[in-house]
């Protein structure tokens, strides 16, 4: 039995709505980009929505802290659902979550912080965990990174300190298989899953496209981190369906088709009431489209 089958249908439906919402927002962003409405760059997490929703649903979003990366729209939306301020930010409006100064990769709201330097947030998140430990707040920090960032030295300095000082942090690795255009196997030696173990950070490798499974494991690890004040690493196998940023994709269609069969939203959809799903999808599309029209002033 898949772990998803054990979860309540209502919760699964909520996960679906959040994941589908992220998908629609990001497809909208790519469309706006293609039409020249937004500039700069947009890194989407198409195909990785189960990671964002599964992990962040396991947190206490009032007190826990999230450090995200360049591919952080999904994390942001799963954290606060504030689509308007995210879209406004990327459209460059002063009402954006960082007044349009931050843009897609540099988002900050309450306990959410993202930055566009790969691996750079690992030490920062570790310091936040140290701060919360000294305060005795009970808060846990989750730091998202991709397998690409696991080639950065800063990550290992952070793992060492997090374990040495017993800090309440979960390193959440999205193994989406590509670093820009480079397949993970051509830039990493040894086992990615087991690397953190050498630092004394227990690592758990799971299917990152099964939102219920992600959520269940994340809940267990977050609970361990909170009660034991010790770091963990959650390693999630997933796949980046979209291009690195915009149209820069040179992968084989055959490979993409293979992974489309395993993508998290279709997999979850199959387990839900189809008429309810159709209703949710229509509602989400309408919400996002209304927001975009509002923000574009038409």
């Amino acid at each position, binding site marked *: 039995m898949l772990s998803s089958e054990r979860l309540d249908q209502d919760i699964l439906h909520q996960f679906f709505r959040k994941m589908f919402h992220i998908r629609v927002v990001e497809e909208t962003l790519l469309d706006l980009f293609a039409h020249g409405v937004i500039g700069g760059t947009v890194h989407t997490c198409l195909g990785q929505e189960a990671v964002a929703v599964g992990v962040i649903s396991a947190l206490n979003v009032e007190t826990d*802290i999230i450090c995200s990366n360049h591919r952080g729209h999904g994390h942001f939306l799963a954290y606060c659902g504030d689509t308007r301020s995210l879209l406004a930010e990327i459209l460059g409006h002063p009402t954006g979550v*960082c*007044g349009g*100064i*931050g843009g897609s990769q*540099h988002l*900050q*709201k309450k306990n959410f*912080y993202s*930055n566009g*330097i790969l691996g*750079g*947030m*690992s*030490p*920062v*998140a*570790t*310091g*936040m*965990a*140290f*701060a*919360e430990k*000294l*305060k005795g707040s009970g808060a846990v920090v989750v730091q998202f990174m991709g397998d690409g960032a696991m080639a950065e*030295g*800063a990550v290992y*300095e*952070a793992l*060492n*300190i997090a374990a*040495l000082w017993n800090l309440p942090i979960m390193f959440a690795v999205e193994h989406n298989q590509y670093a820009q255009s480079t397949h993970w196997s051509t830039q990493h030696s040894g086992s990615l899953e087991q690397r953190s173990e050498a630092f004394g950070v227990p690592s758990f490798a799971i299917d990152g496209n099964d939102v219920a499974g992600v959520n269940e494991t994340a809940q267990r690890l977050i609970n361990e981190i909170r009660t034991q004040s010790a770091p963990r690493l959650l390693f999630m196998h997933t796949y980046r369906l979209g291009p690195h940023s915009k149209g820069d994709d040179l992968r084989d269609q055959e490979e993409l088709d293979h992974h489309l069969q395993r993508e998290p939203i279709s997999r979850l959809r199959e387990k839900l009431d189809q008429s309810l799903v159709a209703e949710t999808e229509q509602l989400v599309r309408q919400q996002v489209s209304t927001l975009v029209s509002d923000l574009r002033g038409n």
Partner: protein
Amino acid sequence: MASYLAGIQAGLENALTINEKVVVLGEDIVDPYGGAFKATKGLSTKFPERVISTPICEGGFTGVAVGMALRGFRPVVEIMFGDFLTLCTDQIVNHMAKFPGMFNGQVDVPLVIRTPMGGGRGYGATHSQSLEKMFLGLPGIRVVAPCHIHSVGDILQHAILTDNDPVLFIENKLLYPLDQHTHILIEQTDEIPGYPTVALKNFSSGKPDVTVIAYGGMSRELVPLLDKLQIDELNVTAVFPSSLWPVPFETLVHYGTQCERLVICEEGSTGFNWGSELAVLLYDKLSNKLAAPIVRLAAASQVIPAARRLETEALVNAEKIENAIWELMS
């Protein structure tokens, strides 16, 4: 009389005593060692929870301090040698300095990075540099380098407790043992609150013949030189801003307009340095008041040699400054 090092120690201790959100991180900083230059001697015994030795990973623990600053602490990082700032440059440039502006003023990063710079001890190419020029002009940070006549402890305490922006705090390592007292006439101006500029004069009336603008370790060379030039009846003002970036520009213009001859000197290597930027700024205001072009002194553009004789040839010292002054007067 208190030394520069004692001033640093007192500044740290006062900050730790006054605000419990102050933490100090760095390599080998706990007792009994107390840091490579002993700046934290005794502090981990008094504040064991808040004075913490780190692994050897300057980028990592600087990032940790950035995270702590974002979450309500006021961390102080010690980088054992300023040369090692290159290892934490990503955290300084793309994290520490960026967050307040990039996040539209929604966060503060009240973090002080202290580090000793400078040569003169024969440590060679990777333990003798004055790399602060790499960070001058970087938006979002302040670069501070008090000389030994400044109340260095007060400035450090201000940076830690009062300044909500990140500060790179440069301590020239040859200043540590120096007595902070001087008998030479001092003026202090506070154009930038908390970061005073001090000016020393070797004359009590009349105008200066030459004004020297310098910072940090150059005070060790200039204070005795002012005495020497007094005997030669040459009136010299030496001006030392403690804030290198931003520059207390009005103050420097004020001293620049008092005479027709200006020298700018610094220990760092020549080429795209503090003196070049300062000279350009000053020319805009003073060009028609100067009797001669501004003279700029800096270290040679080369690796700093380990051998004493070669190191002396490469770096700026009192003799070279004196020669430049007499040449400017001739």
